[in-house]
């Protein structure tokens, strides 16, 4: 089961409100390569992983991604705090305001709602781990795009943290892949 710790994993700061950036950042909340996709992908795949090590890695990284979801939410919350509707309308976020006011919602930067079509679980551990490796690279690349889209140094620091986490996760999935590959290969000999 899951417990919640009343503390962010990272001390999120923004220098000032930025509505347009909030609209871009939301892709890492409800978009295809965002933290919700990552969390649900790993937490769902873990049920059919073959070894304790694999279940551990997927559970732990999946849980950390939920913490990152909270970081993105905090960034968007701070970027929108105190912003009047006129400002949202000015940067073409009027549709968002009409439906959600300043609330967050689980869609991508184009307003497309999150879908389970963003994730897969083939039940083949090797295939699933390759999807996980790809997901970490896509997330890393998206954070690089977002870092370039803002000139807020405080926000950039948080995005750099999240980007580096994807690099580390990629490494762990890579290490796990070798372990699972070895396990699957040795199993076939019995």
């Amino acid at each position, binding site marked *: 089961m899951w417990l919640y710790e009343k503390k962010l994993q*990272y*001390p999120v700061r923004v220098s000032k409100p930025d509505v347009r950036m909030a609209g871009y950042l939301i892709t890492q909340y409800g978009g295809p390569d965002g933290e919700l996709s990552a969390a649900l992908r790993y937490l769902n795949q873990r049920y059919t992983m073959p*070894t304790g090590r694999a279940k551990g890695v997927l559970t732990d990284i999946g849980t950390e991604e939920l913490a990152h979801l909270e970081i993105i939410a905090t960034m968007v919350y701070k970027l929108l705090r105190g912003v009047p509707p006129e400002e949202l309308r000015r940067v073409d976020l009027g549709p968002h305001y009409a439906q959600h006011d300043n609330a967050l919602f689980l869609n991508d930067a184009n307003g497309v709602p999150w879908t389970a079509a963003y994730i897969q679980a083939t039940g083949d551990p090797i295939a699933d781990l*390759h999807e996980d*490796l790809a997901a970490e690279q896509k997330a890393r690349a998206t*954070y*690089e795009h977002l*870092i*370039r889209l803002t000139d807020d140094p405080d926000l950039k*620091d948080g995005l*750099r*943290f*999240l*980007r*580096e*986490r994807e*690099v*580390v996760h*990629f*490494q762990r*999935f*890579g*290490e796990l*892949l*070798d*372990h699972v*590959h*070895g*396990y699957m*290969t*040795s199993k076939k*000999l019995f």
Partner: protein
Amino acid sequence: MARDKEKQPEVQYYPEIPPLELATAYVPPQVLGRTFTPAEAVQYGTLFPELYRPYPYGIKTAR
């Protein structure tokens, strides 16, 4: 097969003798070295200097 699985009764974490197999992706395993302090680690995004890959935005990477 180049590798004799019977000599390795349990899953070998660090393969003793690569030859690497075809149609297989490999990521080299991390070997533990020094670590950042916890305060540094939060700034860098990792505890491990060898996993730190800063993003050099504004600089064109190798083609």
